[in-house]
């Protein structure tokens, strides 16, 4: 079951990742506690891990969709209100936004997170422990709501502690960008 799920959600994401080369911008400032080497390796991990494939919105360029590097790793654009997703039918089980930052499927609608260290809308208040707990467990801060598809958190969870820390250090070194990503939308339910 688990492998089928992985194939269903992760392989398309990885295939898509392989089709687009993302050139993440260099961090302008370093976290005072993080070494330059750690940040540089974190940048490398973000690139080969394809984090920007979903966390950096695509825009339409002269040659087709391309990463909007002005919004690198800022997640789903807050001003881009999404209409209701088309219902899946038959083997068409999930669908994605043109920006590749919003996805609809049996889990409802998910939006990619703002990974920049903005205190209000990003990871600015997060500690490494919170980040690591989220990636290792697939739950917010290791305890809250589940991280939704297509986030391939099991891949990130397999990172060594050192790699995880480098990844976090790089993200924390990015310029903070204020972008309030919408909350996930549940599939329909009776809540009363």
């Amino acid at each position, binding site marked *: *079951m*688990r492998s089928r*799920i*992985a194939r269903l*959600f992760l392989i398309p994401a990885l295939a898509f990742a392989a089709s687009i080369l993302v050139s993440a911008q260099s961090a302008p400032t370093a976290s005072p506690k993080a070494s330059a080497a750690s940040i540089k390796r974190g940048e490398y991990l973000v690139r080969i891990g394809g984090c920007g494939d979903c966390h950096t919105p695509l825009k339409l360029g002269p040659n087709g969709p391309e990463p909007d590097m002005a919004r690198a790793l800022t997640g789903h654009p*807050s001003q881009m209100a999404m209409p209701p997703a088309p219902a899946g039918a038959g083997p068409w089980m999930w669908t994605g936004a043109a920006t590749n930052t919003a996805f609809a499927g*049996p*889990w*409802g609608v998910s939006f990619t997170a703002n990974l920049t260290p903005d205190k*209000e809308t990003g990871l600015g*208040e997060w500690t490494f*422990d*919170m980040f690591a*707990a989220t990636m*290792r*467990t*697939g*739950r*917010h*801060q*290791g*305890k*809250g*709501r*589940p*991280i*939704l*598809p297509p986030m391939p958190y*099991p891949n990130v*969870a*397999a990172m060594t502690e050192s790699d995880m820390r480098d990844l976090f250090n790089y993200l924390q070194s990015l310029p903070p960008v204020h972008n*309030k990503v*919408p*909350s*996930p*939308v*549940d*599939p*329909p*339910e009776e*809540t*009363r």
Partner: protein
Amino acid sequence: MTRRTFAAAASAAAAMLLAAVVTAGSPAAMAAGARAVHPPRMLSETGLYADGETRRIDPANRPYSPQYPLWTDGAAKARWVRLPAGTTIDVRNVDAWTFPVGTKFWKEFAFGGRRVETRLLWKVSATDWVFASYVWNEAQTDAMLAPADGVPGVAEIAPGKRHSIPSLEDCRACHDSGRTEVLGFNALQLSTDRDPGAFHADRIAPEMVTLQTLVEERRVSPLRREFVTDPPRIDAADPQTRAVLGYLSGNCGACHNASGPLANLGLNFRQPAYAPNGVHAVARSALNRVTKWDLPGQMPGTSRALVAGDPDHSALLYRMRSRRPSSQMPPLGTVVQDREAVEAVEAWIARQAQACVRSGCALPEGTQGNTVR
């Protein structure tokens, strides 16, 4: 199949699908299961039963019943504790007890008169607890250790809803979120000043351990006489508020407290054993607090955790009502809404929370509180 049942089945399938993704074997789960001390393979080998089978509880294991139990979809629960002979519980910190090495807790879950699961919490060193879940067999003769990733959907508990054995990570999500791993066995939960309005609480049987028996049997150190002369009780202006605060403490306070890993979120629902005006801590942390999680249909960044007099705009209540993974609270361990509690909290927000505001427990004028996720 009707449209409604199909929708229910589809949503259940989606939930199971998501659960399968969420509980995919992570290194942390495997590490948790790879501790030096391993739990026995069968429940009958854990020391719970006197005869090595599953008919008679070993008399050394004492039943107890917390007054504010965690909601588990209406499961009938039985709980036992074993303290090693001659040991005492260190209660110097009245709200975070330290248990002697060798302490064991068991909690049995039954639905429809059938035992489904029994959990074990076993202190194996000064710092380590072993967590284990056992799944009862069809013949109800014994239960087998569940895998670290848990077992989805072991028993149907309502139409389209099934009980799942939690993963070790899910166990630790709550039990590692405070100053003690043990959640239902503390001064407030065992107080003999029981809350008659508490939701889903069992009656105290004569053989049960209570705060009073712990003192009388000298199983706590220091021997806090106030546990008997002044048993803990949530200080509330009215019975409804007392019951609601107790429910929030028992069901939300394990994670949402001022000292655990989620303290940064700012919400504090845990009630200490002795504190004046229990509603103040809840109100000061939740009232008008802007949440990062948005109520459906509201502008992002405008949802509040608790809005006095306005249940439908209180994210706390919405998430209590919900049983969808992205929005439900608690986020794990339940797939069925606690209707009795939802109705009580709704009524409390509509009426009593207003009184709280009038009495000055609200945040200062113009303060919106910090944001929470």
